[in-house]
Structures are given as structure tokens and as C-alpha cells.
């Protein structure tokens, strides 16, 4: 019995491959399997070639796999595009009309299994039986989807389902795709990265979000909206991104823990607002889900190309922090941390994700809704002595923040350089005091930096360095090499700014070969590491074709760095 199976469903947008995929995932989770789902789609509503990939088995997965065990091709194009990726012993399920005549191919007479509108159910049945999933579990999923309203439709579906399972059981033999039964708890949450961010935000006390739709960030907001009423969170679609960030700043000023979510192009329009948040010292969470640029680029693909831009965004100088989650758990945790940090340091905090992390799902252990510490905005007016000074110069650089209207204290915020009370000034000494005050907050930020996560021997021959969404593939590549007996380690960053060289300089220095793995064409993070630590990472594995990293992709490019013979 295989430890894992990589199932890829391919077809056109609108053919229902997502429905099949989601039903199948649900059943797999209930059957106690681990799963990792990644999606790829075109920037169009109908047509185009899309895939829904499910990597499932008995061990947890954190990255997609290239080699396909079970290819479910809903159209001919899918066969053409993916046949070559079939793993040894792999299987292609396709309609008799266009199934290739290859040993690995199963030509399915869908027409015989049922009328066209039930072919999704048929496909589900086939896959289910190949994987040895109980038909009842499959049907239950369909039932939940369709609801009890139309019993006759349900009955018809059940018929097609059974017929298909049967057909598969008889015709598809000699394949070892029956999944070993796994211990994974059935009671898990099925989340993708954007859903985890939305949950983190709500758990962290988010009360306001303004946005302008932009792939791949929109689904974060969709999830906030779905729960807005239940959680008392105001979500407003703004007229543009400039409005979005200024609304969030206004809401935050007035006491609502606030965020915006966008992608590179939309974020570009927010950069003046970022500077405003820095100057007015207004807490703000800015979530950027990256996609390949420049400009419109590849709207539905993935990249890590906006690091330098986000890190330097906004004119003038002010403190900031930047997080880049590496998995669902950190999407949830870091969003809460970022919200709290923004409020505490009264400055913009960034969360940098990308389409890969946004759209890839796993079934994970539920979060504990009791174990949260939601942000509460503003200080207690009672503790304030009059006249209240919004920008009182303090040692930490953090001034007491009151909310307008909650007391008789007047709160004055200003985008011009200002005095302690918030009024415009051009006095040089005040200017210097205010710049120093704002920058002192940076020292505070530096004190609570999350160190990078190091796995493996400190004196490894090979050290793979990465940040954000590459965590899964990075670790899988390392594991594979380790299993081949190589002394390999990974160093993964989830806080990108501030960077504290003391936390990692030695690890870089003591390791043998150091390779930086990142999803862009110019090695932005490697440059940042050199800027902050002076250490030049000699090797890079880069990807900028819009597709996510896989262990295979990394390993292939490591080959030339490895002593021959030691090849993976």
C-alpha cells in the first residue's frame, strides 16, 4: 500500500473539476487521510486549462508533487499536458472519447454511466473506488452539497455513483492505490492559506477591513465577509485601493483594529497611505498576496517578487515589521501577531503571502477559539493627564494612543510633521525629536523578532535558506536528501523585517554550501540578507514561471552543487 498518492484532476474552468476535487477531499479527510491541495487556473472565467491537485496519504504533506499517480482528465488537453508527468505505475482516467491508447490509460464510457450532468458524480465514484473509499462516505458528501431539497436528484446521483464504483471495481485492476488506513483525526479543519489568514484576523480582533478586489487576495476578504455579521466586523469594498487604505487608517484611528488585503499592483496604490500610517502612527495590518509582476503580470499565478518593494514602500522613514507565513498554522498565528504588534507599536505591519499559499489547502488540527488574545485599541482615557498629547515624546517612542470621541480629550493626528499635540510644525528641534521618537519604536520591534526556523545539523554540508511560502517544498527537499544520507539543514524565515543577524549569521557561516531558494528572478531575499548581515549567499535556486516550488524542482537544480554520486 502506497504511503502517498498524487491525484490531479484537469479540465476547463466551468467543467466542475473544483466540485469533484472538493467532494473527494472532504471524503479523504473523513477517511482519516492527510491531504494537500493545490490549484492552478487561468485568468478567465470559462475555458482555459485548470487543475485541482490532491496529494493524499498517511503522512502530512506541505507541498505539491510533480509526478502524478492518478490523472483524471476531464478533457483532451489535460491528457496532452500532463501525460508526461505520470509517475511509474501511474494511471490516467479519461472519457473513452479522448483517452490515449496507453497501458496507463483507462477509457471510461461516461455516457454509459449516466447522463452528462452526472459525470462529476461518476468521476467521483471512479476515483473513490480506485482509492478504496467507502461509497457511503462519497454519497454523504454529495448529499451535503445538494441538500435534501430534491430527493429524486439525490437518488439519480446515488445510482450513477454506485454504477461508477462498480464499473471501476470490475475494470480497473492491478493498481495499488488503495490507501493504507491512517490515524489522522477525522475532526480537522480544511483550510487554505487565505482562509487561515481570515480566521487569524477575526481571532486577533479585527473589526474593520476595506478592500478593492484583486486576485489572489480577494478570497481573504470573502472569508471575512462570510463571518462579518457573526464576528461584528465591518468590511467595505472601496472605490479603489487608495480609498481602501485610507479608510482602514480612518477606522483604526477611530478605534477599530483594521486591515487591508491586496496584491502587488493594488498595493502600489497604497504606498502613500503606508507612509501616512507611519507618520500618524496609526496601527494597520497590510496583507499582500503576491502574484507574478510586473504590472498585471500573471494574475492567477504565484511569485515572491514584491519583497523589496513592500519592505521599502512609502516615502520617508518610519518603522515597520514584515511577516511571511510558511504554512497554514503560521498564516493563522502570524496574522494575530501582526495585528497585535501593529497596535502596540502604532505602525504599519505587513503580512506577505502569495497565490500558492493562498490557494493550497490542508486538513489541520482545529485552532482553539478560547486560546486567543484579541487586540483592544487605544489606552484608558482615565489614565491621561490634560492636556492630552497624542505624540508625547517617550523613551520607547510609543505615545499613549487615545481614541477620538471616547473622552473629552481631543485626539489630533497629522500627516505633516507635528508637535506633541499633533499640530503642524516646522521647528527643527521638534522635527528631530519626532523622527527620533518614531525610529525608537524600531528598537522595540527588533526586540521581539521571530528567529528563523533552523532544522538539521548546525554544521550541515548543505544549508537551504528560504522564506514564506517555500517552507513546505524546502523541507521536503531536505528530507529527501537527508534520507539519502546527506548532512543537510534548512533555515526558514517567517519574519523578514526587522532582521537580526545575530539570530542566523553563525548558521550561515558554519554551514558548507549555502543555497537561497526563493520565488523570484533576482534573489531579493539573498540581497536583503547581505544588506543586513554582510553575508553573501553564494548559490540560489530561483523560480519565476508562476508555478509553485516542488521538492523535485529544487533537487534538480541542486544537482550541479553536489559531489557526483551523491545525486538524489
Amino acid at each position, binding site marked *: 500500500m502506497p504511503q502517498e498518492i498524487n491525484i490531479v484532476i484537469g479540465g476547463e474552468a466551468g467543467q466542475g473539476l473544483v466540485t469533484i476535487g472538493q467532494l473527494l477531499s472532504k471524503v479523504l479527510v473523513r477517511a482519516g487521510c492527510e491531504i494537500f491541495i493545490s490549484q492552478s487556473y487561468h485568468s478567465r472565467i470559462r475555458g482555459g486549462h485548470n487543475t485541482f491537485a490532491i496529494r493524499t496519504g498517511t503522512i502530512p504533506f506541505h507541498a505539491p508533487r510533480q509526478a502524478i499517480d492518478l490523472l483524471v482528465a476531464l478533457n483532451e488537453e489535460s491528457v496532452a499536458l500532463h501525460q508526461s508527468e505520470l509517475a511509474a505505475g501511474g494511471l490516467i482516467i479519461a472519457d473513452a472519447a479522448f483517452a490515449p491508447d496507453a497501458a496507463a490509460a483507462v477509457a471510461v464510457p461516461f455516457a454509459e454511466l449516466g447522463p452528462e450532468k452526472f459525470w462529476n458524480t461518476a468521476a467521483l465514484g471512479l476515483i473513490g473506488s480506485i482509492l478504496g473509499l467507502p461509497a457511503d462516505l462519497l454519497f454523504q458528501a454529495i448529499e451535503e452539497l445538494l441538500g435534501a431539497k430534491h430527493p429524486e436528484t439525490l437518488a439519480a446521483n446515488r445510482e450513477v455513483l454506485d454504477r461508477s464504483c462498480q464499473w471501476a471495481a470490475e475494470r480497473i485492476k492491478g493498481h495499488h492505490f488503495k490507501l493504507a488506513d491512517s490515524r489522522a483525526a477525522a475532526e480537522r479543519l480544511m483550510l487554505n492559506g487565505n482562509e487561515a489568514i481570515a480566521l487569524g484576523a477575526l481571532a486577533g480582533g479585527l473589526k474593520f477591513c476595506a478592500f478593492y478586489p484583486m486576485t489572489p487576495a480577494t478570497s481573504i476578504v470573502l472569508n471575512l465577509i462570510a463571518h462579518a455579521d*457573526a464576528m461584528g466586523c465591518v468590511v467595505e469594498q472601496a472605490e479603489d485601493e*487608495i480609498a481602501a487604505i*485610507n479608510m482602514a487608517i480612518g477606522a483604526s484611528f*477611530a478605534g477599530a483594529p*483594521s486591515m487591508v488585503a491586496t496584491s502587488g499592483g493594488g498595493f502600489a496604490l497604497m504606498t502613500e497611505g503606508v507612509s501616512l500610517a507611519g507618520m500618524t502612527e496609526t496601527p494597520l495590518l497590510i496583507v499582500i498576496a503576491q502574484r507574478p509582476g510586473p504590472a498585471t503580470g500573471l494574475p492567477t499565478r504565484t511569485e515572491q517578487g514584491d519583497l523589496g518593494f513592500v519592505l521599502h514602500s512609502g516615502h520617508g522613514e518610519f518603522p515597520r515589521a514584515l511577516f511571511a507565513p510558511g504554512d497554514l498554522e503560521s498564516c493563522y498565528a502570524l496574522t494575530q501577531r501582526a495585528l497585535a504588534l501593529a497596535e502596540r507599536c502604532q505602525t504599519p505591519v505587513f503580512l506577505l503571502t502569495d497565490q500558492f499559499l493562498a490557494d493550497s489547502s490542508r486538513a489541520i488540527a482545529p485552532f482553539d477559539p478560547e486560546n486567543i488574545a484579541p487586540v483592544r485599541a487605544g489606552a484608558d482615557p482615565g489614565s491621561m493627564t490634560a492636556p492630552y498629547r497624542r505624540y508625547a515624546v517617550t523613551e520607547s517612542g510609543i505615545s499613549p494612543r487615545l481614541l*477620538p470621541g471616547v473622552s473629552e480629550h481631543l485626539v489630533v*493626528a497629522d500627516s505633516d510633521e507635528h508637535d506633541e499635540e499633533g499640530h*503642524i510644525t516646522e521647528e527643527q528641534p521638534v522635527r528631530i525629536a519626532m523622527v527620533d521618537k518614531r525610529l525608537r519604536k524600531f528598537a522595540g520591534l527588533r526586540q521581539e523578532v521571530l528567529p528563523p526556523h533552523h532544522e538539521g545539523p548546525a554544521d550541515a554540508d548543505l544549508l537551504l535558506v528560504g522564506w514564506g511560502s517555500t517552507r513546505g517544498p524546502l523541507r521536503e527537499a531536505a528530507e529527501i536528501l537527508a534520507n539519502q544520507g546527506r548532512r543537510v539543514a534548512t533555515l526558514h524565515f517567517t519574519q523578514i523585517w526587522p532582521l537580526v543577524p545575530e539570530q542566523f549569521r553563525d548558521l550561515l557561516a558554519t554551514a558548507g554550501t549555502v543555497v537561497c531558494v526563493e520565488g523570484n528572478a533576482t534573489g531579493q531575499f539573498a540581497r536583503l540578507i547581505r544588506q543586513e548581515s554582510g553575508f553573501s549567499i553564494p548559490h540560489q535556486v530561483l523560480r519565476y514561471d508562476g508555478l509553485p516550488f516542488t521538492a523535485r524542482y529544487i533537487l534538480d537544480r541542486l544537482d550541479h552543487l553536489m559531489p557526483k554520486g551523491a545525486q538524489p
Partner: protein
Amino acid sequence: MTTIEQYGEFETAWCPGCGNFAILKALKQALAACDLAPHQVLLVSGIGQAAKTPHYLKANVFNGLHGRSLPVATGARLASPELVVIAESGDGCMYGEGGNHFLAALRRNLDLTILVHDNQVYGLTKGQASPTSDQGFVTKTQPHGAPSAAFNPVAVAVAMDTSFVARGFAGMPDHLAGLIAQAIRHRGTALVDILQPCVSFNPVNTFKWYRERCYELPAEYDPTDQELARKTAAEFGERIPLGILYRHEKPLFEEHFAMLGQGPLSRQEVSRPALRQVMESYR
């Protein structure tokens, strides 16, 4: 009972003779007339000479970016429905850089007051044509005269069926104070475009120029008649109507957000049970 004195007296950075002084005074008068204490009010402005106004009276203030007073005001209003929110800035700020927010704000109809110091010029940056500059208005940057047609904010506001549309004049401060007070009291988005002579950079549209053209809408004028309002709002040139051009009630934007019924968002706790249910939904 709030008095105008409670709003204080401050030194300004304006030119002697500027129309802004009268507007500042009218605003204080209106706030006192509405019996609002300074801490109940939030003034949001952009950048420009007009945008400095909030620094010259006692109130909560957010003096943000050029052109962005309306989104900030919108966010603040949605976060804290108890605040009386007034967005105040210049013509360049509101109709130029901020044009898109102006359209969106009128479509939203939050309970919000919009005061525009309309001097038909960019003052703080030393006299370039603004959206409301008369076509042909000569400046250093428009030596052959402003090439674009002037923007008529009240005509557009009426065409967009804005809840409250008025025009005032810095040369008639008491009339103006009355308009601002009614705008603040109005339930919905209220626009007051205020003709404001700029003595340093607008030699054309002077106090005299406006005085010769401005007339008060007659008592019998019916501001609820949209067709009449469209016609009247279009009038700007030989004669310029002052007063409430158009007024009608419509549903508030705030009503679409149930949670705003519970007061400021800052006072609303995160409910663990609700969060648990939310999480369950991802099972």
C-alpha cells in the same frame, strides 16, 4: 449649551484677507449652534490651505493626505457611529486629487458632512488651475488659460441624487453658518460647496466678483424638486445661486451594517462562541 468660544482662537498660516477666515468662523458658529462639544466632533482634512482649518479650532482632528479626506472620514464614521464626522478641504483636494472618493462618498450616503473651500485655484502650491477654475483662467502653469471645462460640483452632486447639496459664500458668513448647521443636522451625506476668494492667487474670482453674481435662492424655491434642482445647480456664471439646492432623505449607508447598532467597534468584544462556530464551518 456650547458656545463659539469653546472652540478657541488660534493663530493661522493664512494670508490676511483670505476667505478662509470667514469660513472658519462660520464653522465654529454652526458647531455651537448644533450644540456639539469639541470632543464629539471629528474633523478630517486633506492637504492645502483649506485643509489646515481643523488645526484652528478645538476638535478631534485627522489631517491626512492631499485628496484623501473622504476615505479617512468614511472609515472613522464606520468605526465610530457616535462621532459627528466632517470632511473639510479645498477644491483641489476634494474634486481634483480626490475626485474618485467624491463620487463614491455621494453614492454611499453616510451620515457625513462635506465642506469644500472652493477658491477655484490651488492655493498652497501657489496658484495652479484647479478643477473648478473657470475655463481660460490664466496662471503660471496655464499661461494660455485653463484648457479644461470647469467642474460644477453641485450639478454633479444633484445628478447623482445626493441627499443634501448646498452652496455658500465666504462673503456671507452668517448665511454660510446656517447652511453648515443644516448640513451637520441633515441625516445623510451633505455637501456644502463654499465660494472662497483667494486674495493671493485668484485675481479673477474675488469677493467683488462673487458679490456681483451670487443670489440667495428665494423662499419659495423647493429643494425637493429634483428637476428644478438640476436646472438651478447648472447655473454658474453671470448668476450663482446660493443656499440649499437639493435635499431629500434616503436610507443611510450605516444601516447596511448591523454591528454599527452596537456603537463604536472599539467597544465590541470578540465573542469566543461566535468564533468557535466560525471555525466549525471549515470542518
